[in-house]
């Protein structure tokens, strides 16, 4: 058997499990909230076109609308001002090989349970590496916080001084980019940055540094607790939107049982 044949066989037998890391696109799923004078992220909406009725007797279908950054979604480098000149920086230009690759999961769930503003720092990453080995170059790094288990108001955790949710510090994300040359960074929260990420220098450091370096982002991921720290494969292919800065997508992981 070649490697694809053995993979097919392993999936069929359950030796390799497919884990869905995606939230359902739902009108009630939170989106990022910006000051109201700014343009806003469109919520997911679905309008019935017909449902086996006078509008179309034998078929049911919907028109859907949303932002590129609604629900579980992919961030391309052109999403951020720092990545505006990155070559192949929009979703339609990214080489498709980038959409399948190795992933590691840094478990921050205990820290995030204790502190809504939990920070992913270089020390946290080094401590993880001491246990699981050095993060391989060109891999996806997913920050597990179990935030995806929250729903309703605790998800954005919006207060009068803004949202509170975990994320990387500027040093933390730079470490992953400069020292480990990762492919992308993914979170369970509404963005790759912490809820209070606007107050770092620079503001929104994960967006700023990742996309400036041509790296990708994934957010609103789910089921990271079902992934091993290392050894899984991530499949995350955004829609091929002309000049798109991101895309809702189905994110899957292949895991050895």
């Amino acid at each position, binding site marked *: 058997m070649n490697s694809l044949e053995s993979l097919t066989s392993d999936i069929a037998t359950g030796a390799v499990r497919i884990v869905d890391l995606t939230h359902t696109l739902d009108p*009630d799923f939170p989106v990022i909230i910006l000051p109201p004078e700014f343009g806003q992220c469109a*919520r997911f909406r679905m309008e019935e076109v017909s449902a086996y009725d006078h509008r179309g007797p034998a078929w049911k279908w919907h028109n859907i609308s949303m932002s590129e950054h609604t629900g579980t979604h992919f961030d391309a480098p052109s999403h951020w001002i720092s990545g505006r000149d990155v070559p192949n920086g929009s979703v339609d230009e990214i080489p498709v090989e980038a959409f399948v690759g190795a992933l590691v999961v840094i478990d921050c769930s205990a820290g995030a349970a204790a502190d809504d503003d939990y920070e992913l720092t270089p020390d946290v990453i080094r401590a993880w590496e001491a246990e699981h080995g050095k993060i391989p170059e060109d891999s996806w790094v997913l920050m597990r916080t179990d935030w995806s288990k929250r729903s309703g108001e605790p998800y*954005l955790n919006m207060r009068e001084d803004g949202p509170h949710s975990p994320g990387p510090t500027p040093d933390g994300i730079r470490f992953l980019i400069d020292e480990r040359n990762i492919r992308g960074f993914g979170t369970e929260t509404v963005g790759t940055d912490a809820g209070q990420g606007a107050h770092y220098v620079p503001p929104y450091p994960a967006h700023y540094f990742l996309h400036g370096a041509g790296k990708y982002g994934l957010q609103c991921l789910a089921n990271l607790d079902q992934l091993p720290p290392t050894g899984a494969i991530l499949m995350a292919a955004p829609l091929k939107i002309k000049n798109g800065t991101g895309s809702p997508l189905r994110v899957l992981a292949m895991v050895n049982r």
Partner: protein
Amino acid sequence: MTDELPLPPRKDPQKRTTSPTRPPEARSRASLGLSAAAAEGRFALQVCADCNAVQYPPRDACSSCIGTDLLWQDIAATGQLLADTVIQTSTKLYFRERAPWRMGSVKLDAGPVVLCHIHNDCEKNSAVTMLNRLDASGQGVLLAIPTIRTTHMEDDPQLRALSADPRHRRILITDAWNPNTPTVANALIEAGASTVFIGESESWRPHPNRDALAAIDKVEVLPLDVTDTASVKKLAGEIGGKTDILINNARFMRPGGVLDRGDTGFAKEEMEVNYLGMMRLAQAFGPGMCARTTDGVNSAVAWVNILSVNALSNTPDYGCFSASNAAAYSLSQSLRGEFRGAGLRVMNIFVGPTDDAWYQPLPPPKVLPPAIARSLVDGLQRGLEDVWCGDIAKDVRDRWRRDPKVLEREMTNGGDGA
């Protein structure tokens, strides 16, 4: 004297809901001036420009001098009850179902003798005050009520039929986020509403009214987002059969005209909330409400929109928002026609700039929530179709009626420097 209207018992599920019937709708074109005045709660009759004779009934030529220049004018709504009778049956289904029905003649202080409905508390030969109210067909009809108030006079069946009184009714306010919602909810409860349902969108983030609404007895906050068809249908499925009055106060607005914006993002959201939101609500709640317009004491009775007065004439500093309200106003006229057959009223409350975040840079006067609440309750109690809330709304209305083009030219000045 009128007996106090008790809180109706819960509906008997074994009884068929009564189908709506209506009083006669046909009128001459000249008579529609009475309906136009009733839509605003005014008592008006034609007055001859040549000889000043007050006309009744409405006509095309003066009954004194045959002059044809008959102008609708507000006149003194006072008179004396001359004679009255009680109709025991009628060939008209609407009155047959409601007999006995008191009618009579009143000598108006302004001159004519009119035939009209008579409130049961009016004593023979007594002084009466005339109301010009919209009936269930949306036409102006005259009702004489006692000049000296009697206890519970609003509970008289004839008068209640000419109103959309919130008393004992279950009311849906569509937007918990609107700054006016707690004040409006309190005012409706004060006016006797039995339940106020309040739709809350995006319950996944906090909003400033939440605590205030939770503290009000008789308020039920339920999920509703007028931009989400599924959400609107779901709530209609739950409470559509007991929504007697729907108050659509959902509003999305951002300042700016076409060139300020540079894109269609906010304009689209304005249309989604202010225009399509009304459409979604009407498609989901309208049929159920129309089927319940004669469903006893707490029947479905009114649909209320709160619109910017710039629906009539655009103000370019809020140009795109004004356009969405023009669309909503036009849609409300369609709804009037579509609801008419069932006798469900559509009341539009026109407001000038409101005292909230998006009108913050504008100087006073601005409309405060208590003013909206007062206009709303008063409009329902008087069964109005068009309510003008605040000085700016009234001013724009008057200028629009005088000359829409002059108003447009004033609203679209290019600023200083020319």
